[in-house]
């Protein structure tokens, strides 16, 4: 049975979205992205190195838009205006591509999202025809407002960007998911495979990560682990876990037909 992630009307079979930063070279980037099985990959928009390394390949040659859905981000933007300008440049760079990742940060130390600027940017971008996947805090009220503005996916943090601290507030994620009519994708905070599995078991529609893979000792192996974790967590969510109880009076093996006890 198909179990696709649908974002802005387009189907994806992978529920793992990955970033392309922090790898040691393009070969490692490509190998990790391939091992992850991701179809949607984030990229950043930065000034061209004018006159430097003219023969150097570009990221778009390594990860071509014909093969992947590229998701340009606004990482490093601290105001709505800068985020909007960055994504307009991205749309021009990618020949009119409108699916984007909006993130407006609050400070360079925590990288915590500035939701006021995020909401302002989301309004402008949606009005300008962008399909906005939005990184935000795990505040369910803000998440609902971003959905009402017209964002096509809500992407709350599980913990701070690059922290690897895992799922710190599953209850808020559940509040967001209960109310959302668009996909909810955990973005930021995943540290290892079990974190990704927990996010999916909670019922998240997907997980987006970068540092958890690029920052591993063996990034390509971790990419593969994350792929399996997201698939396992999704299957467990759909299967429906057994209820938790302190103890069980119902052993797994039959209670009848046990051989005679030698004890009294």
């Amino acid at each position, binding site marked *: 049975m198909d179990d696709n992630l649908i974002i802005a009307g387009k189907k994806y079979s992978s529920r793992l979205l990955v970033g392309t930063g922090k790898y040691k070279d393009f070969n490692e980037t490509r190998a990790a992205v391939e091992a992850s099985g991701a179809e949607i990959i984030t*990229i950043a928009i930065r000034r061209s190195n004018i006159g430097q390394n003219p023969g150097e390949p570009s*990221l778009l040659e390594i990860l071509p838009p014909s093969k992947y859905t590229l998701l340009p981000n606004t990482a490093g933007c601290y105001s709505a205006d800068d985020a909007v300008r960055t994504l307009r440049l991205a749309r021009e760079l990618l020949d009119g591509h409108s699916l984007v990742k909006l993130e407006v940060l609050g400070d360079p130390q925590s990288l915590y999202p500035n939701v006021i600027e995020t909401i302002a940017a989301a309004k402008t971008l949606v009005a300008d025809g962008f399909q906005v996947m939005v990184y935000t805090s795990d505040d369910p009220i803000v998440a609902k407002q971003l959905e009402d503005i017209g964002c096509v996916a809500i992407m709350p943090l599980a913990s701070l960007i690059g922290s690897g601290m895992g799922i710190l507030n599953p209850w808020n994620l559940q509040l967001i998911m209960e109310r959302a009519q668009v996909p909810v994708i955990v973005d930021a905070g995943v540290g290892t495979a079990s974190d990704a599995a927990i996010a999916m078991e909670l019922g998240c529609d997907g997980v987006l990560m970068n540092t958890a893979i690029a920052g591993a000792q063996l990034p390509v192996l971790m990419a593969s682990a994350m792929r399996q974790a997201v698939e396992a967590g999704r299957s467990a969510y759909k299967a429906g876990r057994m209820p938790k109880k302190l103890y069980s009076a119902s052993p797994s093996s039959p209670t009848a037909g046990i051989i005679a006890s030698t004890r009294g």
Partner: protein
Amino acid sequence: MITVSINGSSHRLPDSTCVAAMLEEMGLTGKRIALERNGEILPRSLFASQQLEDGDTLEVVTAVGGG
């Protein structure tokens, strides 16, 4: 001569330099880039016809790895 800002640094260029000629000078011809002129997107189709003016501020960007 005119003075324009390209990615934050000042450049002196001959009068009537078009955007395409500026990109050629910078070694960016044929590269996948996008360009903003004074805060507004300048579509690629206009690179050959648009002439730079003294005081223009340009941002020339490309895609890089990011999360």
